């Protein structure tokens, strides 16, 4: 059960190594807090989730580490630590919700090791998936234990076959900020907007994003927000340190005389992907926010399909959408 670990020096080298060791389920690793400290340590594996025998370290690739500020966007390398995002004055100034979402991740120790790419691409936190004794769909099995089991933390929207919730806080904020992922692979480079980056179980139950075999997320590009954009971030968790979102809400919108011009409302902890609450956005568009917010937030109920034990999450989502938008709006 030995593991080979390669330090890649360039993205190309990493991509080549991934291809070369594809038959040994090679994976890229950065902070390793989930892949090594979670998935591998806990033997989370199965036919559809083979245990990697080769790991390729991305933190040794200089181009993947750092925050670059351009006139119209900020580019963040995938191997930049979450702490570096938390500490970035540029990110705080331009995208406070990205800074807040990063600061809400796990604990200082994990943020010091964990990276932006790792946070966005980590595997979900379902206790059936993580339990060695449950061979669920994601591991290549043919059952979702959450359907009949304890599903208090599971999806209330968009579950099908598998009812995980996407675990990334930063992805929720980045989706609200209309970010784009840069991807490299043997077939070349491509960019995918966050709107399309994440994959639900209906599309492919074995993964959570668009990365194909042999591809690496290299950077995240966050475009400048329109001047005067209001932003808000809420992460509700049962424990203030080292806990995933029960519900998180990220909002970014522009306002004119109290009226919602344009913007995004995204939710974490509710769906297998970071969820864009279009029903709420549409209900607010062109409306006076204070007058409409209650009805708009309630729109989340029209898309929610809670399971046996998690109907309370629908109430939480509704309440927190309302609260986050009003707080961002200011009085």
């Amino acid at each position, binding site marked *: *059960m030995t593991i080979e670990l390669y330090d890649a020096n360039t993205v190309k080298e990493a991509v080549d190594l991934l291809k070369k060791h594809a038959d040994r389920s090679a994976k890229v690793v950065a902070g390793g807090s989930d892949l090594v400290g979670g998935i591998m340590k806990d033997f989370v594996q199965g036919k559809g989730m083979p245990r990697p025998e080769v790991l390729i370290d991305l933190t040794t690739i200089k181009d993947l580490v750092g925050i670059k500020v351009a006139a119209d966007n900020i580019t963040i390398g995938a191997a930049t630590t979450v702490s570096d995002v938390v500490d970035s004055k540029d990110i705080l100034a331009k995208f406070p919700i990205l800074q807040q979402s990063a600061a809400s991740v796990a604990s200082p120790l994990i943020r010091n090791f964990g990276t932006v790419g790792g946070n966005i691409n980590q595997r979900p*936190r379902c206790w059936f998936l993580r*339990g060695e*004794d449950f061979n669920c769909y994601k591991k290549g099995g043919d059952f979702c234990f959450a359907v009949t089991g304890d599903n208090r933390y599971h999806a209330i929207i968009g579950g099908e076959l598998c009812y995980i919730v996407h675990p990334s806080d930063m992805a929720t904020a980045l989706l609200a900020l209309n970010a784009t992922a840069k991807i490299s692979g043997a077939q070349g480079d491509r960019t995918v907007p966050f709107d399309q980056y994440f994959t639900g179980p209906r599309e492919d139950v074995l993964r959570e994003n668009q990365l194909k075999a042999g591809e690496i997320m290299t950077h995240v590009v966050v475009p400048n927000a329109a001047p005067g954009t209001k932003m808000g971030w809420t992460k509700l968790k049962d*424990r*203030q340190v080292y806990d995933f979102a029960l519900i998180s809400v990220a909002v970014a919108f522009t306002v004119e005389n109290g009226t919602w011009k344009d913007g995004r409302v995204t939710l974490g902890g509710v769906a297998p992907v970071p969820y864009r609450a279009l029903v709420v956005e549409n209900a607010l568009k062109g409306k006076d926010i204070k007058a409409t917010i209650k009805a708009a937030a309630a729109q989340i109920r029209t898309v929610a399909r809670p399971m046996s034990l998690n109907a*309370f999450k629908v109430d939480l989502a509704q309440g927190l959408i309302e609260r986050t938008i009003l707080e961002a709006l200011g009085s």
Partner: protein
Amino acid sequence: MARIEAVRVAQEPAYAASLSDADWSALGQDPDWQMLVAEQSEMLSSVIAVHGHKLPGSRASDVTAPNAIPVAAKVVGTAVARMQGLGTVTSQGQFTEHLGMAGMLFMRTLRSRYPHAKIKSVDTSKAEKLPGVRKILHRGNLPKEYANVFIGAAQPTRFLFNEEVFEVGSPIAAIAADNEHIADQAMRLIDVQYEVLPASLDMLEAMKSTTPKQFETKEAGTIIATTPPLVRGDPSNTRADATVDMVTRRATEQHAPLEPTASLSYWDGDKLNMTYNSSYSHSVRNGLAQALGIPQNKVRVFQPGYIGSNYGYRGGIDVSEVHAALLGKLTGKPIKNLYTRYEDLVTRTHRPEFRNEVKLGVNKDGSIVFGKFKVIANVGAQRAGAANGAWFGLYNLYKIPNLLLEAVDVMTNSYKSGPYRCVSHPNGTFALEMAMEKASYAIGMDPVEFRLKNLNEVGNPDTKKPFSNPGIRDCITAVRDAINWKATWHAPKAKQVRPGVFHGVAVAAHACSHGGGGNTVSGQVIINGDGTVQLVSASNEVGSGQRTEMMMIAAEALGVPLNQVTITPYVDTDLMTDTGVTAGSQQTNTGGRAMYEAAIDARQQILSWGVKKLIDDASKKGQKLALTVADLDLQDGLVFEKRAPATKIKLAEIIGFKLTSIIGKAEYIQDPKWERTGWAAHAAEVEVDTVTGTVKIINYIAAHDLGKAINPFMVEQQIEGGVVMAVGAVFSEEMLIDKTTGVPLNPNLLDYKLPSIKDAPRAKVIIIEKPKEYGVFGAHGIGEPPMALAAPVIASAVYNAVGVWMTEMPLTRDKLLAALKTAG
């Protein structure tokens, strides 16, 4: 002589009646019995009533209790940092988890994945071929002499390897390998064939007569024991103006200490040496000797004194420690057995799931008419008792003229029960105080006034044993005043502080049996040639600081400065005598009491040698001196004549004169005449967010009567820590299983949610000192009582805030939001 099963003695009258006098003598030394004495004395009360005279402990110590606090106390009552503090926070202290030895092998245990099954076969052939695997022990190759060895009490019986397993995590094979990764891999190469049997996972289902039996019993289903009820007055035929009828529940909790269970052991010829992070090294020694069939002096158990805490579940061995000893014997190598977090959370013990069915009848004038409490405990996959421990507060705290107490312990194929900073007092207090709170609102009486009106401050109403100087009224009035009750208390739902956020406040009270003492103990005080003082005690440090406290007690009793006294952090059974378990909040009044008496003995010897030396000194000058011990005093480490205090003799001079060290020693058996009781009241203010279901504690006050705070600094830490632990169980801690498979759902520290430092309320501590006649310097222990009040005080404050009764712990936001919805 067959091994006596202490839990059966407590639970099966016929079994207890079958024991010989020799058995009863041996029982006094049995580790499981000692644990029950320290931690679950309620379980023993009925058997002791019948057979107590046969126990060696019926002989009480004849030394008068040292309850008087010296007027000029120099050490007792001062704030002293723990002797292990620096080593603990810097990790320079040697924790068992970190220890290693040349050539040691690492152990891993393959465990059952089913809650109830027969192990049909274990095929280790693939695993044995893996390079680095040294030995795999399982039922098929266990040496015959260990086939009938078991832990605890029968039935269901926990053998070294069961053919029929009753729980997920029951050991199937133990592997010793060159490193833990090889052991991990080998574990996954072992092929086990199971015959899966129907499991009993729900406590109430398990009590039904239709539930299949899993062991021989006359009880319904898988009930372990039904305690004979306690009946006071006529609870069934009494009427009251108002009757509170409620069911309260608590979920399974686990200690989750920082350092998982760990041992490092090796054989030196025919002697086993084991370093083990236990709270009772002598119990570990005796348990290993018993299991291995070797004499007690052929086992040495060492506990380094640096331990990632205990909280109650480390009083003895589990089967895994026997496996480690056997693997060491079979391989001839040291064995490191470090539990994984999964193993520590799942396979060790838990505070069990409880259910209380409660009726409390009260009259409009605020008097309690009757109480009926049926306590049901899910003790998990073993023979254990937990339910009737909840009775102590129920029969002692308030005057309840007509009372019915029932208790049922139920076995399920689930988490095993055991002490966790107490076992069941927090459950009893939750049931009692929720009922009291609801009753006070039902009759429209101020909840604090209602409690004060009904306090029992005399003694146990049934046994007539008296309390000693009970401080419960002081505790309640102290928190009432500190929280400014008159200004903060209001009608339910009457104070909205922000949109959707409501303020609430409550007070709760608590009485429990912990802190008084229990076990038979010993202690030694050695005066060295240079006048330094060395203490010897096998009282295991578990983080509570009692070894520091022992130095303080000895220094005070002797009359020497604290910096002249040392005690080892570690305990070594080869060098020290049994001092009982560090449990039941008892070590202040057990190990500490023995240390006090040993110090008094040493002091007497010092003074008597002082007399001889002074007479000798005088005779050398040709003078004749008439002097007795009563003429001398010892203060600040110096002996002097009371009539000529200017001339001092150092302790070194006395030892120099005597030529050998002075050894003061004591044994202590406590007298049974007192209803030794820990008293407390807590008050809390909360803000309840009706949108998120978040309950924020904005003010928390904890008052405890502990007779005398020997070290107020450590007392405050014990209380603050207890409140934080309890708050974890109030909001987020709950050991879950998948109801279909019986498999644990959250056996890791990410999903079993201990509170983080950001979630921890800062409790304001009020120390009430009403000296106890039985206590060392009047002290009463403090380890467990702080755990019991957070649940009722927070749930009651939530009622005051938003008007819903939250009677099920943990008080999670899903339950709270659902209750608010139902209430409208």
